């Protein structure tokens, strides 16, 4: 959550559920986010994982991270 808020302080990540579909996060945000998440959680997010379902909400991102940590 901290990473998200730092990336885009103007977005309400607690409640948004269509971050990608509504175009709130653009491709530049996504790449920056991937870099941060990779480092913070020691994972490797691949272009395959970049589907809207994985990034539409903070919860979806958390699910992706947990999945990749396994």
């Amino acid at each position, binding site marked *: 959550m901290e990473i998200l808020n730092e990336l885009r302080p103007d977005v309400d990540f607690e409640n948004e559920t269509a971050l990608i579909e509504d*175009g709130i996060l*653009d*491709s*530049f945000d*996504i*790449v*920056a986010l*991937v*870099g941060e998440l*990779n*480092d913070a959680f020691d994972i490797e*997010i*691949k*272009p*395959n994982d*970049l*589907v809207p379902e994985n990034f539409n909400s903070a919860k979806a991102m958390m699910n992706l991270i947990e999945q990749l940590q396994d």
Partner: protein
Amino acid sequence: MSYTSLNFLFFVIGTMLVYFLFPIKKHKWVVLLIASYVFYLFAGYKYVAFILFTTLSTYIIALWIEKISESSKLNIKQHKDQWSREDKKKYKEKIKKVKRLVMALALVLNFGILAFLKYYNFFSGSLNDIFGSFGMSFSMPTLKLFLPLGISFYTFQSMGYIIDVYREKTPAQRNPFKFALFVSFFPQIIQGPISIYDSLAHQLYESHSFDFTRFKYGAELILWGLIKKMVIADRAVIAINTVTAEYNSYGGTALTFTILLYALQLYADFSGGIDISRGVAQIFGIDMMENFRRPYFSKDINEYWRRWHISLGNWFKNYLFYPLAMSSLFLNTSKKIKSTKFGSTVAGTHIAKVLPTSIASFIVFFIVGIWHGAYWKYVGFGIWNGGIIMLSVLMKPVFEWCHKKLHINPKTALYTVFQILRTFVVVLVGYVFDVAPSFKQAINTFVLFFTDQNLSVGRSQISNLGLDKKEYLLILAGAVFIFIISVIQERHNKTTIRSMLDQKPFIFRWFAVFAGIIMLVVFGVYGSGFNAADFVYMQF
């Protein structure tokens, strides 16, 4: 057979009848496949070998990739107890390399053909010039190459599929004929949209029965597309072609006018064509993705490229931009900048965050530029768009600082209008590279914009471009009409004009449709032999 020809209308009606009356529901898709190949043969039987090659090579290689994935998974399962975590990881890496190599084979083969047909003469010509300038008599022959119909679009679509199979996002299609339909589906073969396998293919293979609402909406969309294309674009193109034929004899004012007219013509032509494609598909029960979302209302150039030719943008984003920007080279560059002394400053943090990404996007735009054609002017087009995006992202904190210092609230309506106009000007500059016959002439055009504005000369030149005053007025009226429709669409983002029209009284509805038909029949531009001008994007 152009989408705007009467032949095409009869072709669609014929295909519709056969499709909806076809008794074996399970095999309805075969009708679409046959229709697509009939359509393609009309374009020229010489072309068929190319599309067949792409279809077959992609079909086989996709199955091959899938086989490697499946057998490797089986192997891992069988050795579950024997292999350590490390062993498993090593094995997976090895398999990944093999898969990547096989995928590369498909990419090299198919993009190779496209590149050869598109760029051979450019390279041979440039090489000959270089050798010539050294006084060598070596020369590579110039070949008479033709571009098969829709080659860019079906190549992009097929390669997207191969990458999706490689990424295990989609299973490989086992039926070669079904796959052939995905590659050749006739409403989209000329100029896209470039569909993603997962969202289009199953719709093609399902059986659809006739649905009057779909038919009505599809037909209305086709009518709207035809009006944009035949009443506005095909009329405006007459003046544009007159200018490009003798580009150097026009002054700054006439050229400014031409570029503005081109912005209208290109949008009306391309979005009109896509509306026809999507309308035809809709009648058959198939929803194709949106390709335009009022791009000229964009507030910055990034947004513009997300709203203009959306399917191509998505393709480049998913299959080139993300892999590039997320490659270890780019992500590590970002980390390296961060770890320097400069990286700990405010500017440094920002640059570390966005520089590698903006370089990746610059590369993408450069490639999009030269995809338009092997000419230096398209290199200019790519560098302009990529460069502006790079600058706008890098300088974002500076702009925000300026807003604060100048007490500008970026959310006011006035500022939004300013942003839209600013973006439009950036887009127009890009169009100059498109319209001007060469890079040198494009640069010269910019000089003329500032040094050669003369209203009376411009007026007389504009009145001699093959269109009279009434026709210019008609184009203007068309532009205003598109503008009004676009504003309504922009305000009612979640619904369509057609469903809004549906809620109006019966008489109003029929009047609107009838007026559209009359407009098309009376004001449509019909060239010799009823053939409208080719779609601009057909040539790519």
